């Protein structure tokens, strides 16, 4: 079997007003991959394709060593999938849903389910219609975690949650990762959530993957340089600098491949370095998207 839990290569899907364009994505086994993109970027379409729910027009999709969509039944035994638009049966109880999933999956871990039930403050006799949004998300997560799947695919699981519920969900996801070899693909437009739990990060915008790498590498390579530029000095175009904004004598340069030599190059050109700042994942995401869109316009 491949060392990747998820492999998408050259995946395309055309809709009337949206195209998923040559998606290449690899998620190594045992890693948490955060898929970040603005609304309408193609996160859900990508996830639906890898779950076999939407068929790609072109390209190959392999999940846990199974070709999708043709081998989706075999693959889905080991995938726990939750999406923002997923609802349980309103008129039925938590206990009914647990019995239903337990009857299907022999791997169901009842002790773990009961522990999660307690930790999430839920009771088996509660009907789904009486649950808050946060409790419904927790319930869905309980149903998939207690199955002990090898791969968790979560499409915007924290959207619309209050900070406490979000924290609880993220804590359980992190705890679930202590199971050796479990992989998580987690989509969100909330970079804070992704930053908190992911090992790998992929940015997607307008149906294209614009960047994908290790989270630490992202945080390490992206920097903001605040410069003072004396009159008459022109800043040179440097490799690794994706944007320079200048107002009067103050300039801000954004680097996506920062090395100390970049600062030296600006100083050699006559500018003075005021500060070199680390960037948050949100700032990196926004800068990345803006850069990618600018490149698209210029192309």
């Amino acid at each position: 079997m491949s060392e990747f839990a998820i492999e998408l290569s050259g995946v395309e899907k055309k809709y009337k007003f949206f195209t998923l364009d040559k998606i290449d994505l690899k998620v190594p086994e045992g890693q948490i991959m955060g898929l970040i993109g603005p609304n309408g970027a193609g996160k859900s379409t990508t996830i639906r394709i890898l779950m076999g729910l939407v068929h790609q027009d072109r390209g190959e999709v392999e999940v846990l060593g199974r070709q999708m969509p043709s081998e989706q039944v075999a693959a889905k035994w080991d995938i726990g999938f939750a999406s923002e638009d997923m609802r349980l049966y309103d008129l039925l109880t938590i206990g009914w849903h647990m019995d239903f999933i337990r009857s299907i999956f022999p791997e169901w871990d009842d002790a773990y389910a009961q522990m999660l039930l307690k930790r999430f403050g839920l009771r088996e006799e509660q009907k789904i219609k009486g649950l808050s949004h946060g409790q419904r998300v927790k319930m869905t997560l309980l149903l998939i975690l207690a199955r002990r799947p090898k791969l968790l695919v979560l499409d915007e699981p924290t959207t619309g949650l209050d900070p406490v519920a979000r924290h609880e969900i993220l804590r359980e996801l992190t705890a679930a990762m202590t199971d050796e070899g479990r992989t998580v693909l987690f989509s969100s437009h909330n970079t804070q959530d992704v930053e908190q739990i992911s090992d790998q990060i992929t940015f997607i915008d307008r149906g294209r993957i614009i960047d994908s790498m290790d989270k630490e590498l992202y945080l390490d390579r992206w920097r903001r340089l605040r410069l003072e530029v004396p009159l008459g000095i022109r800043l040179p175009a440097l490799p690794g600098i994706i944007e320079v904004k200048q107002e009067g004598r103050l300039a801000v340069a954004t680097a996506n491949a920062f090395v100390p030599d970049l600062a030296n190059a600006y100083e050699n050109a006559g500018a003075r370095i005021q500060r070199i700042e680390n960037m948050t994942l949100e700032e990196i995401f926004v800068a990345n998207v803006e850069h990618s869109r600018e490149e698209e316009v210029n192309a």
Partner: protein
Amino acid sequence: MRDSVVGHLILKDWRLNRPLIVLSVLGGLIALVIVSWGGQTPFVLGGVWFFMALILMGHMLPFGIINERKRQNLPFLMSLPISSIQYTISKLISTLGLFLIPWLMLLISAGVLIEVRHVIPLGWIPMSLILAILPFIGFVLITAAALVGEKEGWGVAANVVCSSSYWFVWYAIARIPSVAAGFNSPFPLWNSAVRNVLACEFGTIVMILALTFFFQSRKKDFI
């Protein structure tokens, strides 16, 4: 051991739809009791009520499928180890079973009533069967629209078309001379006209089911 999920989905649908089936069977049986009183008024009232029970059951059951999509339960079901075709098979088996078992029970009860109580001539049996199969066709058509059409509107449209067609189709069939000829017969007349109408009805059902599988298997986006 990992069993097929299809069986679990069928059982789930049976559990969820039990109240509707019990109510429909009760409604149908009450209608037959009214027919059994004898006389023209109970016959007309009970007969209409009986067919209304069949129609109601046939039209309500497919709304379970529509509601699963509308209430966003479908992503939950499709996250289970099933394909879209297996989902279609589970829905057809469960809803067909849910419809056919009470439908047959009511039909047999009606047959026994006609045979034992002689409330209407036995010659009415072929026509009653023809009439009773029409709600079955309506049920299959609405189920197909609910499965293939991805919007509630398709199910509602199929519902409206069926509801407004039954009376015209019944009237048209009753006007076929060789079918109408058997009404007052002391025994059922299974002549070629009756057989042809029944063959057309069953052919329509098979065709709708085949088309449902054809369209479902061609779908590229299932949610």
